[in-house]
């Protein structure tokens, strides 16, 4: 055990652990909203469209995460606007933005002179190279999101569940929906650092699905999803280090295994209960 923990002497690993914890908590809140509203596909659209921003930022010599944030927010607001209009097929619009973002990213990266060494880290994540600034940004945004989810919990829940009724009750539904779109976009973009574009959606969904095996109460899903996110990602992180496999993929693998094991245990337990009851 002590041998296992010697890795904690390294700063980069302590940073990675902190990033895994913070990402799990952030994704637990935002992911519960995404899974409850059944808008995982919108999350996918935001994630992939943000790659266009990464490419553009590279081309212009700017901070790639800033580029991703701008593209992510624009996509999220665009999708919310389209779904409010009701006369454009929302799923098709998402698919267009999804692939357009990826295409733009590839074009800009191709046009950038020289080799783009960090590009792979955006596709697959690079939790082991997370710096102090990244952590502060992630911590700051997680705290802000926690604050918003606490203070505005009821309107967020009501507008997600039944926007028409919320509107009749005088809640500014549009404002809340757009606010949540921006939070969704920023949470996704900041998590790209941890697990990468291709895998990011899973930390916004797998822990929530695991949590929902135990409760169907929105407020309880969030802490439970945070817990499952932390156990899965920390296990994945240690495995990545000791087995020398990519961290992002390892985290997703452990989150999924965890879901399957928990699901199996819960199912068996219910069967036993049914038989004895």
């Amino acid at each position, binding site marked *: 055990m002590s041998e296992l923990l010697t890795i904690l002497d390294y700063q980069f690993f302590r940073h990675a652990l902190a990033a895994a914890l913070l990402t799990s908590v952030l994704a637990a809140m935002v992911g519960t909203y995404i899974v409850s*509203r059944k808008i995982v596909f919108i999350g996918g659209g935001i994630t992939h469209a943000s790659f266009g921003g990464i490419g553009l930022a590279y081309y212009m010599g700017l901070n790639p995460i800033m580029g991703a944030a701008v593209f992510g927010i624009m996509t999220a607001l665009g999708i919310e606007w389209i779904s409010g209009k009701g*006369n454009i097929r929302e799923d098709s619009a998402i698919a267009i933005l999804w692939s357009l973002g990826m295409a733009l990213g590839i074009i800009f990266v191709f046009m950038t002179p020289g080799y783009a060494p960090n590009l792979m880290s955006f596709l697959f994540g690079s939790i082991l190279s997370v710096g102090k600034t990244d952590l502060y940004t992630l911590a700051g945004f997680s705290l802000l999101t926690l604050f918003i989810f606490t203070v505005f919990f009821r309107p967020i829940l009501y507008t997600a569940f039944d926007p*028409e*009724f919320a*509107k009749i*009750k*005088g809640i500014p539904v549009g404002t809340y929906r757009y606010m949540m779109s921006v939070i969704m976009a920023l949470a996704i973009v900041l998590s790209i650092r941890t697990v990468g574009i291709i895998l990011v959606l899973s930390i916004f969904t797998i822990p929530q699905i695991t949590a929902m095996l135990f409760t169907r109460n*929105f407020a309880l899903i969030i802490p439970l999803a945070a817990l499952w996110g932390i156990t899965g990602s920390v296990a994945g992180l240690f495995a990545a280090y000791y087995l020398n496999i990519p961290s992002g993929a390892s985290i997703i693998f452990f989150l999924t295994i965890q879901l399957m094991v928990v699901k199996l245990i819960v199912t068996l337990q219910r069967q036993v209960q049914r038989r004895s009851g």
Partner: protein
Amino acid sequence: MKKPLLILDNIRTGYNSDPVLRDVSLEVYPLDFIGVIGPNGGGKTTLIKAILGLLPLFSGHIHFPSGRPKTGYLPQASQIDRSFPITVKEVISSGLETSDKFLPFLSSAKKEKVRKMMDETGLGSLSSRPIGELSGGQLQKTFLCRALIDEPALLILDEPNTHVDKHFEQELHEWLKELNKNMTILLVSHDIGTISPMVKTIACVNRTLHYHPSNQLSEEVLKVYNCPVDLIAHGPVPHRVLKSHDHE
């Protein structure tokens, strides 16, 4: 003469730029109990969404002579996402007035109000149950409580009889009659047979609206007003119910 609660003045409304309803005029008076009937796709739900302010008017006006009344609304069951992780208590609380929606916790007075309503309607033991685990009747009761918790002056119900058993239908019937002593009710249904004993008057909606100041509709009246034919072609049941029923 009582002042109307709500006046629809020649409205034209629908989705996007496609008008579903045209030339609709109606005056609703306090303590009215109007059954809004008509075939599926005829515009019943469109009508109530326009009244609720959820749809834009292409032309015409909606007036509220004494100001917009507090309104309770029960949407169609199909509009509800039953897999959404929300509890009975939370659904009912969402119907409370909105002045303190920013606060994370409900005041104890409001909590008490919700608890009292759940106890009175037999939902008390289901308070923390997610809505996905409720029966059709329990679900409709939960949403009716949400509509009623803020003590509205106008209650709008869209097909409350969907997915419920006969027992609940009877309970609902009694409940609405009692509520009608204090509030105006608009009840939407595609089935005139089940609602005509409850309502006082009837509005037929099929692209346009015809108002009948009675809950007794004869075949002749329907024909004169050019009401949807499939309404009177339902079979013998509606007529038996209509003609045998004595309304005060």
